[in-house]
Every structure is written in structure tokens, then in C-alpha cells.
């Protein structure tokens, strides 16, 4: 928040002023200060742990449980005071204006939740045994109000501080609209805390939150393993690329191109993720092809050509046991099939070819053409698009060619640098690329 616009300052100032007014003018009568202290410490503990765990944006927001427990136990005034604690989070990230705003935002939304709770007939204080299940209605409404107010205030400040490009994408570009639902789930733990407060007092909060903290540990472990897993997949790709200097980065770019196509045709996020992996691994079977065949300068013999045609099957052999990759496997196996049925390894045609394979084929050929090869220079993006269009319907699925062209026109395409062979090494580079649609493989005896 280095350079804030005047509007942003005005907005933050207003929010803080309103929060201060609300906290100052709500009478803290009948509030148990010891309860308030415990709940404030609890909120601070929850808010001091990093909240989102990459990758896959798993969130962790038990802070709502603390403020909503305060709503039930202390009422709106107490909840607002507890909310202020957010400003003192032990996380290093937030700057002072951010901290002040966060505290004000939490206080205001907690206060609003408290008002909703009272308006719908909830009673403040430790719930009696007979207050269930009647209390659930007002509590749910309070939780919804709390979360809505929080996101509303947050969206406002992000709207004013983020650049116009983000704003263009509407509300979705400002806040992640998938987040409020898990937040709502976490909020209900507040009711659990309030419910057993009558029996064990402050230990209620600890007992409810221990399993959640353990869960957070497990999720962090999950994230670590996920990173390791992705790194290992990347090593698999790099292993392929050690075989040919000129194909460096090919897997990553095919992966990127496939994702562009998949997003453009509106695939579900899980499938986009899967195709990202498929792109990374599509040529892994080249490891099963002898190096001297891959780097041969003359025409290929029939056997050598057969070895190349087998590479998708080889790839399958290598990775078929990896559980996460089911649909990607089909894509990898068939990424050299052609729409007209003249591809390999199975000679499938049209819709018989798995969707992933048809996407990969387009991205694969596109990257090959826009990269430099030892036997030719790189084509420009325009030339490559023209070539894709020419082969559209015979080799490639026209829908995916269109999708790639549209995506490239919108987002651009980073063509690879011309590879510089490392000095002092005798570089043997292939005289052909099996992906190249323009320069078909030359096999002894053909043509």
C-alpha cells in the first residue's frame, strides 16, 4: 500500500472512523472481561497463522469462529472489541495502514453480525442446554452477515487500490468468490465453542481449535508434498530434454499452450490442471528411443521410424502408475494421432482421439514450429498459425486450432530464445523433429 489514491485514503479513513464510533458508543455493560480476553487471544492466534496455503489456494480461516463465538457470548459490542485485535496480528506481512484497516473491518463486521443475531431473536450469553437447536438460525444469519460484511469492506479497499486491469474483470478480479463458503463452514465452530463454554469455560475454544490446527499442519504437509511432486514431474520432463539440446523448454511450452487452449474452451479447472501435467510429460516416451535415432542426421530406417512411432506408448509405460494422471495418460498416448486417422500409434480418427490428445497435438506442433531447430530457423507466430490453419481438419481438430489462435492473439506467445550450444562441447543435434508438421520424417525407401 505504498502509494494510495486519495479515494482509497478517504475510504479507509471512513471505515476506521465508523468502527471507532461503533466501538466507542456501544455500551460494554454486562460483558465478562475475562471471556473477552480469552476470545481476543484466540482470534489473535488464529489470525497470526498464515491463512492461505499454496498451492491450490486452500484457505484456513478459523478467525471467524472466534468472533462469532464472541457474538454469542458477548453480544455486538464485545464482538466488535474482540475484532479490533486483528490489527495486532503477529504475521509480518501487513503494513500499519493495512493493520488499522483490518482491525476496523473485523470490528465493524463482527458488530453487524451481533446486531443480526439479536434482531433474529438470539440471546447473548452462555447458551443454556435448551437453546438448541433454536439458536442455529440466528447464528447462521450472523455468520453470513459477518462474512458478507467482511468481504464487502475488503472488496471496497481492493477496488480502490488495485490497478484498472483488475477492475475490468469485475468482482471476480478483486476477491476470490470461492472463499466465503469454507469461511461459512469455519464460522460454525464458533457455535461449538459457545455451546460448551458453560461446561469448560475457556478450554472450550482450545478443544474445538486443536483438531483444526492439526488439520492445518496436515495441509501444510500436503502442500510440501505437492511441491515435491511437481518438481519431480519437472525432472521427468528435463530428463527428456537432456536428449536433445534444441528441445529445451519444449515440454513447459507445450504445457502452457495446452492450458491456454483448455482455458479458452472453458474446461473445468481440474481438467486444466491435468492437461498441464499432460503437456509437461507428453514426450517422456522419447527416453525410450535410442539417442542415436533421435539425433540421426540422415534418413531413418524402417526400424528407427518404428522406434519413434512407439514413443507415446513408451511414455505410457513410464508414467501409467501415477495415480493423479488418468486422463492425462490418454492424452499422452494419443498426442500424435491425426484427425484424418493417419497418425500413430493407433491410427485413431476424429472423435475417437481423446480430447486431451487433440489439444496436445495442436500445442505441440505450434511450439515446434515457433522454435529453432538445428536444421531450420524458427517460424514466426503468424507463419505457424497459417500452417496450423492449413492442417486444420486433416491433422488437427479445428476447434482447438481456433482456440489456440484466439488465445495467442489475446495473451501473446513467448517464443523461445535461439539456443546457444554450450561452448567446448561437441553438439550433436537432431536433423529432424518428429513433432514438425512441415518437415515430415524422412524414412529410407519412402518417396
Amino acid at each position, binding site marked *: 500500500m505504498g502509494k494510495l489514491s486519495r479515494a482509497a485514503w478517504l475510504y479507509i479513513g471512513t471505515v476506521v472512523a465508523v468502527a471507532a464510533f461503533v466501538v466507542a458508543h456501544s455500551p460494554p455493560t454486562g460483558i465478562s472481561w475475562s471471556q473477552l480476553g480469552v476470545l481476543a487471544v484466540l482470534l489473535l492466534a488464529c489470525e497470526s497463522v498464515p491463512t492461505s496455503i499454496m498451492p491450490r489456494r486452500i484457505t484456513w480461516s478459523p478467525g471467524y469462529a472466534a468472533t462469532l463465538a464472541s457474538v454469542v457470548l458477548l453480544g455486538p459490542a464485545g464482538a466488535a472489541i474482540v475484532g479490533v485485535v486483528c490489527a495486532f496480528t503477529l504475521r509480518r506481512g501487513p503494513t500499519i495502514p493495512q493493520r488499522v484497516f483490518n482491525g476496523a473491518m473485523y470490528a465493524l463486521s463482527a458488530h453487524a453480525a451481533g446486531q443480526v443475531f439479536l434482531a433474529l431473536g438470539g440471546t447473548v450469553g452462555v447458551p443454556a442446554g435448551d437453546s438448541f437447536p433454536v439458536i442455529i438460525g440466528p447464528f447462521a444469519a450472523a455468520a453470513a452477515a459477518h462474512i458478507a460484511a467482511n468481504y464487502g469492506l475488503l472488496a471496497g479497499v481492493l477496488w480502490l487500490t488495485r490497478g484498472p486491469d483488475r477492475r475490468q474483470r469485475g468482482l471476480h478480479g478483486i476477491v476470490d468468490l470461492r472463499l466465503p463458503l469454507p469461511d461459512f463452514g469455519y464460522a460454525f465452530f464458533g457455535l*461449538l465453542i459457545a*455451546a460448551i463454554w458453560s461446561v469448560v469455560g475457556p478450554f472450550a475454544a482450545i478443544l474445538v*481449535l486443536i483438531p483444526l490446527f492439526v488439520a492445518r499442519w496436515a495441509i501444510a504437509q500436503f502442500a*510440501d508434498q505437492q511441491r515435491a511432486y511437481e518438481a*519431480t514431474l519437472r525432472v521427468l520432463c528435463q*530428463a527428456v530434454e537432456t536428449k536433445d539440446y534444441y528441445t529445451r523448454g519444449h515440454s513447459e511450452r507445450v504445457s502452457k499452450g495446452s492450458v491456454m487452449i483448455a482455458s479458452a474452451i472453458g474446461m473445468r479447472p481440474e481438467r486444466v490442471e491435468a492437461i498441464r501435467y499432460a503437456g509437461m510429460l507428453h514426450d517422456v516416451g522419447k*527416453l*525410450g528411443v535410442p539417442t542415436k535415432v533421435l539425433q540421426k542426421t540422415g534418413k531413418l530406417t524402417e526400424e528407427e521410424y518404428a522406434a519413434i512411432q512407439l514413443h507415446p506408448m513408451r511414455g505410457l509405460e513410464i508414467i501409467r502408475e501415477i495415480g493423479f494422471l488418468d486422463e492425462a495418460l490418454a492424452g499422452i498416448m494419443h498426442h500424435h494421432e491425426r484427425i484424418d486417422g493417419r497418425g500413430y500409434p493407433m491410427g485413431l480418427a476424429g472423435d475417437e482421439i481423446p480430447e486431451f490428445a487433440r489439444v496436445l497435438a495442436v500445442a505441440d506442433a505450434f511450439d515446434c514450429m515457433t522454435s529453432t531447430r538445428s536444421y531450420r530457423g524458427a517460424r514466426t507466430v503468424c507463419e505457424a498459425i497459417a500452417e496450423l490453419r492449413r492442417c486444420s481438419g486433416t491433422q488437427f481438430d479445428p476447434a482447438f486450432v481456433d482456440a489456440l489462435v484466439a488465445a495467442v492473439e489475446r495473451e501473446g506467445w513467448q517464443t523461445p530464445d535461439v539456443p546457444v550450444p554450450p561452448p567446448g562441447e561437441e553438439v*550433436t543435434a537432431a536433423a529432424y523433429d518428429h513433432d514438425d508438421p512441415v518437415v515430415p520424417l524422412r524414412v529410407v525407401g519412402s518417396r
Partner: protein
Amino acid sequence: MSVSQDRLATTGLRARARRRAGSGQGVLVGASGLLVVIAVAQTAMAGAVAAREAIVFTALIALGELLRLNLPGDREAAPIGTAGALAYALLIRVGQLPARHSALQVVAVTGIGMIVGVLPHLAVGRPARMTGMAARLFAVACAAFAFRPLAGNAAIVRHWWAALAVMTLLIMAAWFVDVIIAAIIRADTLRARFWVTLTDEMRVQVLLGVAVGASAMLIVFAAEAMGLVAVAVFIAPLLVTQVAFRRYAGIRATYLQTVRALARVTEIGGYVEMGHADRVSRLAVAVGRELGMAEPDLLELQYAALIHDIGQISLRDPIPGGATVLVSPEDQRRIAELGAEVIEQAKMLDSVAEIVRRQSDSYLGGGPAGASGTAEEPAAPPPLSSRIIQAVNAFDDLVGNSADPMRAAAVVERLRLDAGAEYDPSVVEALSRIIARRSILRT
């Protein structure tokens, strides 16, 4: 969730477990079965106290047994079932009514719940895992026999903090019983040392144990504040934990599969014989266990052993026959170095890269073969895992796919002659013990 979960270092656990089913595990399962039968008979004769509660908790325990959880290392836990059973053992009041059921009734309810919950597993052809169930049952029984006589005690009924303290102690004791039984079984089936398996077991189980214990107490107090209906609701925090652990176990399994895929790369590329990586990793883990390595180290060893030949993919053409033991020491080290570089690109595998890098170094460090050091500053001895891989790799290169025990014995003898110069004698000794055991099993 796939059945073939993370098989960390426990290849063949089930097969061997079956073979030895007559020993300790049989006694354990038999004893727990007997305990349940006695408990059910006694409860039936005396009449169940508060039948409604008993039914609710039976259902909860059955649900927990149904939603079992895989933990790293081919372990299984039933967090929700355990929490439910412990809560039933520690129950003080339901609403205003004091809970008066006996410890034997707790055992009966737990046993019946577990049996009901395991039936669906059997129906879809999954193993029952009786030993794990027996260990859980004993843990719950301990807590029940200790706490049921105290449940009506004035101090515990009147002061929540006294109840909390006693419960915490008993839950810890129950956890310890569970962990000790699991460690004894593991030491027995994997031929590992008890102290090693105990610390492994404690490390894996501690956090989940904390979550389960907290949830058990939560249920006890919720039943007091809100009656029986609350029991189901208060499982929610533990459910979040369970989901998180499940995802963790899933990605771990996937990761291991990916490392195996990486291992297959060298085989499919024709650099090494088919099955080499798998055999080396299995034997290396066995040697590591024989030498008393702990589970996290064994896991690294397993990864490193699987991909120890990855450096060969940087070679233009495969070594004839793929046996690295037959090429010159310089080439061996170059391959190891290339492999370590490949692994380092995978960032997370730093320690594994080091193991692979040092796999061809002399076990003493320094010396003529220790290329990673200089004349002035001899290299430190390579990690134990590297020494294990070095010996086991040489063994497998020379024996290959052969199942002939004579040949294996001859190769061990050859390695023993080289031990001291090239191979770590303690590793070779451990290897020879394992090979000797194997040939006894075969004949």
C-alpha cells in the same frame, strides 16, 4: 482412495504378516476377541445401562471404523471411531443425568461398533486389519477400566478442571498403549528394532493423537452441555482433520509413484536392466532397517535407491548391460554426479541428491576414491544411505534377476572381500544376514 496407499518401506509387510500370523499378532487378536466376547456376554446378562447412549456411540464408532484413514507407512487409523470410543469411556453426564455404564459395556460397545464398521470394508474386499483394531480396542479398554469407577467421583463431577486433567492423563495413556502395541507388531513383522519402531510410531501418531484426544473430550463436554444430539455435531472439527490427513496421504502416495516413474525412465531407456531399481530399493530399505535406520531416513533411502541410476540418462548411449559396477570408478562417479544434478533440479530432494552423489565414494571418505575431497581436505565419509546403495547396487548388478541362492551367496562373499577397501563392512554384513535369511525362506 486407492487401496495401494503409500507403501513406504513396508513392501511385503502384509505377506510377511500373514506368514507370521501365528505369533504375537494372533495372540493379540485372540485376546481382544475374547475380551469383546466377555464384555458383550456380561453386558447382555446384566442388561445395558442407558441403551440409547450405547446405540448412539456404537453408531459413531462404526462410522469411524468405516472412515478409516491411511497414514504414512502403510498404517491405518480410525480417528473418529477412536475419539467416539474414548468419549464413551470418559463420559460423565448426558444432559443432567450421570452416565453409569460400566467399563465392560464400553468394551462391548466399542467392539460391536468396530465389527459393524469393518463389515463394509470386507464386503468390498479390503483387508480387515484386525491387529490395528485390536490395538485400538485395548487402548480404549485401558481408559475405560481406569475412568469408569471414577466417573461418579464428586471432584470430577463438580470441577471441570479436575475432569479435564484426569481425562488428559488417561487419553495420553491410551494413546501410549496403542502406540506401543503398534510398535511391537511393526518391529516383529519388519524385523526392525523396537526402539526404532516406537519412535517412528510416536512421530507419526502424535499430532493425530492430539486431535483425537481433544475431540474425545469435546464430545464428553458437549454431551454434558447439550445432550446426545450434540455428539454428531462435535465430530466436525475432527472431520476437518481427517480430510486434511487424507489429502496428505493421497499426495504422498502419488509422489512415491512419480519417483517410481522416474526410476522406470532408466529401465525403459535401456540403460539398466528391468526391475533393477525396484530390487535395489527393496533390498536397500531392508539393509537400512537391519542397521536400525528410522523411518524418515528409510524413506529418503528408498527414494534415492529408486533413482540412483538416473544420471545414466545423460549418457549418450547405455552402458552395455547397464551394470555400473563394471565401469571405471571415474565413470561411476561422473554418473553419480550427473544423477545428483538431475535430482537437485527437483529442489525438494536435496538430501536424496547428496545420497546419490556420494554413492560411488569410498566409504571411509578421503582416500584415493574420494573424489569429492581434495588432497588437503579429505571428504567426509559418505552418508550411510550412500554406502548402503553402493553395496546393494553392486550386489544387484552381479546377481541380477537370478533367484539362485548359491549365486547370491557367492556375490556376498565377493563383496565381503572388497569390504574395507570399497564397501562398508557393516553394510555388507547386514546385507549378508538378509541374503542368508532369504535363502532359508526359499528352501
